[in-house]
């Protein structure tokens, strides 16, 4: 992987509204958390887009596989995204 590509990797909570990217890794320690996120469709290679933040800044609403999912920032922090 080139340096330029690596630099483009963020955790999901750092994306701004309307920014999108591809899931490259789920780095949560807890096995059940990882499984749950994957089951909801956040598998590697899936395209996600940040839609909005809740009125108080947390949780986040994202779009993936044609539907909307909401998750907290600390949960999004364990999801690595390669930004478009």
């Amino acid at each position, binding site marked *: 992987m080139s340096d330029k590509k690596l630099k483009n990797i963020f955790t999901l909570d750092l994306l701004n509204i309307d920014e999108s990217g591809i899931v490259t890794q789920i780095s949560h320690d807890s096995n059940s958390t990882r499984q749950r996120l*994957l089951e909801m469709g956040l598998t590697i290679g899936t395209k996600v887009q940040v*839609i909005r933040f809740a009125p108080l800044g*947390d949780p986040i609403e994202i779009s993936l596989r*044609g539907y909307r999912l*909401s998750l907290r920032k600390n949960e999004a922090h364990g999801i690595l995204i390669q930004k478009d």
Partner: protein
Amino acid sequence: MLRTFSIIGNPNSGKTTVFNALTGLKQKVGNYPGVTVEKKEGKFILPNGDVANLVDLPGTYSLTAFSPDEKIATDVLLNHINSSSKFEAILCVVDASNIERNLFLLSQIIDLNIPCVVVLNMVDVALKSGITIDEDKLSKQLGVPVVKTIAQSKLGIDKLKETLQNHIFPSKNLRKWKIDSVLQKEHSEISQILQKNNLDESSAFHEATQLLSMPTEELLIHPWLTVDLIKIIRKKHEKLDFLEIDRGSAFINSRYDWIKLVCDISVKKKFTEIKNLSDKVDRILTHKFFGFIFFFGIMTFMFQIMFSWVTIPMNWINLFFNFLGTEISKILPSGQIESLVVDGIIGGVGAVISFLPQIVFLFLFLGILEDSGYMARAAFIMDKVMSKVGLHGKSFIPLLSSFACAIPGIMATRTIENEKDRITTMMIAPLMSCSARIPVYTLMIGAFIPNNSIFGIISLPALILVSLYMLGLLAALVFGFIFKKTLLKGATPLFLIELPQYKMPSLRTLFQIMWERSIIFLKRAGTFILAVSIVLWFLASYPKIENANPSEQLEKSFAGKIGKFIEPSIAPLGFDWKIGIGLVTSILQREVFVSTMGTIYNIEDDSNSSLGEKMRTEINQQTGKPSFSILTAICLLVYYVLAMQCLSTIAVMKRETNGWKWPAIQFSYMTLLAYFVTFLVYRIGVLI
């Protein structure tokens, strides 16, 4: 011939709408044998006249069983082959507008080799988002029949019935996804060992998948693994972990890879990424400022309506019972029987039944919020606030349902995966003002709070009512915080919720909810409240005292003695012995307070004025002042907000937590809380 089917689907897939479209009003709610989960069943007629039974399973995203609800769905499916409630096929409801994630559950069901029909629902919503699905191609890819439906308008339901009637379900295995090659060998070895241990092929396949994905330490707490099996599986875990293979993810990834193949062939997407209506609505409803305005606005609106329009049909019911009482007095000879029927039964039961409109309206309103998709937004908006108390946005929905009744609220906590959060939510749910408190609130507010308006729009009674609800909510948050810090300490669990597209609430679903609730309420009024009313009439009328006026008679009766007996303990709260009678009788059920007062005041005063008026105008014979002051009324309201007076809630708590510990703690803390807060309010009130 009776045939049995079962229905399953993701949350928000329209499963309930499909269920209602098939079965109409022919439904009954019971329990799964041995477990606590509500089991809903309905009947429908197949085109050839056969009767079919349909069993509803809880909505779930997968069969991995994170929450109690999902565990039930999984258990029922896994055991279906041996269990008594055998069904011939399962209807899997798939949301066409969200097909990829919905097919995940389907792929797990196909693994279990259960005959299956895909109900491809909400095709209209999908079409609007630019998604078209070729059902023949999809059916061929999946290997199971696919029926397109728009359950809300009953489209496709006849076709579905036809398919169920005619389709012959093959017994061969239809599993098509491929396990990742690095796991294939380990998986098939475990699967074969399990088959030697009397599991059938498909259950063994499912279990092998679960056993390979779970963390190694969880093998030790597995319910039925033998020591030898644990050894074998642990070795496989070690080997795969050494190769740095993510066991937990590999199977899920493979399933989604297969789903992608299926969708590439059968689903056409016009990628416009349209900013649809739902999004535009959400811009406002989850807006930093307007989001909250709307949220609190809609709550206030609900209470405003409950206190204005809804009181009109309530008056009709009151008039009806007054009329009935007068007419019956004319027919029956004056005496004890007449008193029993008119004062005891009509006075007591009638007082409670007149609240039916408010309760139906409340369930209608919450039903609209749920069915339109707003409830998920409420969790989204409120999550941050809830997390401050250490709770979860998901706890917000059970709490909101507890405004209707704590029992469905407590049952709704089953969607909370974390056990400690679940118990915390259950512990505070009964503090939310439920519909059984409405009769007490309405009676007291109606009688004692002047009907003035503030700023010309909001009426004082409505404002007081909102404050009562807020008081309950506040107490719930405070005690949620306390429980999370003490008895139920634990990490914050996942907040993962789907935000479904907004839709018009289904009239059929709403009607169903109102119907169900009315029946339950009227049944209670006709059985429990009727019985209590008769017993109370007896206690309040005997022993007979010669030549006593009605007030003296009541005071000397059994009920009067009970009231007098507890009077010293409730006097610090500003309550007299008559309220005492009400407090005692309503320990089992809150609304009994109103029927109690109805009976007592009817025995004392047989004029035709309303119960509220009788209470307001009553004069205490010792002091010569009105027995009830506004302060007494407010104290009574505060007491009813906070006290735990509901036998059914205690029973449900016992069932859901599997023991008496939590219900006992709950009953004690709420009773003490109610006593002390009421005491404080009374003391402060006296000073002012």
